[in-house]
Structures are given as structure tokens and as C-alpha cells.
């Protein structure tokens, strides 16, 4: 079956612009995670969606970051007024249910803010 897909694969934007990153999880997976991977750093947790529950937004670094998940499937991560420090690879992962399940990662979106 299809894996997790993300789009775009690469995004170059100018400082101050807004960007939207998309994640299509594996069908039937109730859990969806966004992470940020910066050069030389590990994976930084951003946000977690589980079914119809309110998302856990505790990892979002600022109020410029937001995410939504429509219909329990596709998710969009939005970064407003981008800054150069937002440059990173943004990874999406889904799993059948919660933390004990294997996560399946998308290929990531590489964001460069000029």
C-alpha cells in the first residue's frame, strides 16, 4: 500500500512569507506527528494528532506555527511570516494508533528561508 507522502519535497521562500506543508498519512492511521529536523540536530517534536481528540501542540516553537488535520486524514503545517531559523526538514509520520506503534515517516519537506 502507499506510504506517507509529503508535498512539496522542497520549498524555497523569502523571509516573511507564509508556507504550507502537506502530509498524506497512511490510510486508517489515527495518529499523525510532525517533526522538525535541523542540520546536526535530532528530531524535534512539533505536534501530534490522535483521532478526533484535540491535538497536542506543545512542541510548536512559536505562534507562527499551526497545523490542522482535516477529516482525520490529510494534515497541513502552516508557518506564517517565515524566519531564516525555520529552515529545516519537516517530517511527518503516522501510526495505527499511539506511541507504542511503529511510526511510518514521509520523505520530508526541505524548507529553505532566504
Amino acid at each position, binding site marked *: 500500500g502507499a506510504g*506517507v507522502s509529503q508535498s512539496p519535497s522542497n520549498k524555497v521562500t523569502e523571509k516573511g512569507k507564509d508556507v504550507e506543508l502537506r502530509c498524506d498519512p497512511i490510510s486508517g492511521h489515527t495518529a499523525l*506527528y510532525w*517533526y522538525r529536523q535541523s542540520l*546536526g*540536530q*535530532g*528530531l524535534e*517534536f512539533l505536534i*501530534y494528532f*490522535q483521532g478526533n481528540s484535540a491535538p*497536542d*501542540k*506543545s*512542541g510548536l516553537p512559536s505562534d507562527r506555527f499551526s497545523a490542522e488535520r482535516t477529516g482525520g486524514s490529510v494534515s497541513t503545517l502552516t508557518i506564517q511570516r517565515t524566519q531564516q531559523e525555520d529552515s529545516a526538514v519537516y*517530517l511527518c*509520520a503516522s501510526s495505527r494508533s*499511539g*506511541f*507504542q506503534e*511503529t*511510526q*511510518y*515517516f*514521509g*520523505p*520530508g519537506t526541505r524548507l529553505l528561508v532566504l
Partner: protein
Amino acid sequence: AQSVAQPEDQVNVAEGNPLTVKCTYSVSGNPYLFWYVQYPNRGLQFLLKYITGDNLVKGSYGFEAEFNKSQTSFHLKKPSALVSDSALYFCAVRALSLGGSYIPTFGRGTSLIVHP
């Protein structure tokens, strides 16, 4: 505090030799431990996990890991390294987010370089 540590940024090993990538953790309650691998320009792929049961866990591509409760470690091992094993390896553990959810929390990663 709940955390996971990978003490080595890089591990170098000759092809055919055994390899070990280290991971230690600090959690309250039962640990749920994972290893993922990231090949260049690709997303992370699951290797293996420990939830309960046998301390020795076998995973993909000939990798295995041993859960050691007394040493709070979950080191990744392979008896004979291949050049194609060269990649970035991440250990993850269940941790409690600031929002109160249990989520996988990842170490900083260890770059494994296997020399021909």
C-alpha cells in the same frame, strides 16, 4: 526527566566487523524503545522496537538490540557490517510531552560509517 541519549555522534567500523550504536534512556514506567534508520535524502525507516518480552529484539536488515534494564540501555548491534549500512541511526523512547501526550522522543542520531 524523560530522555534518550545517543552518546556518539559518529561510529566508524570496517566492513565485516561487528557494529554497535549506543542508546541510553531515562523514563518513568515501562520504556517503549525504538530504532529507526535514515538513509541520505530519505525519511526514517523503522528497524525494531522493544515493548515487552524478550530482552533481545531482532529487526530488519540483520540488526538487533538488547534491552538492558539495569543499565537503562538499548544498544543497536549487527554481527557483520555492510557498506550499505552507512546511514543515520535514531533511538527513540516513549516520553511525556508538555501537552500530556505520550509520544516517541528521538535522540540526536548517530552517523554510522562503514568503510570498505
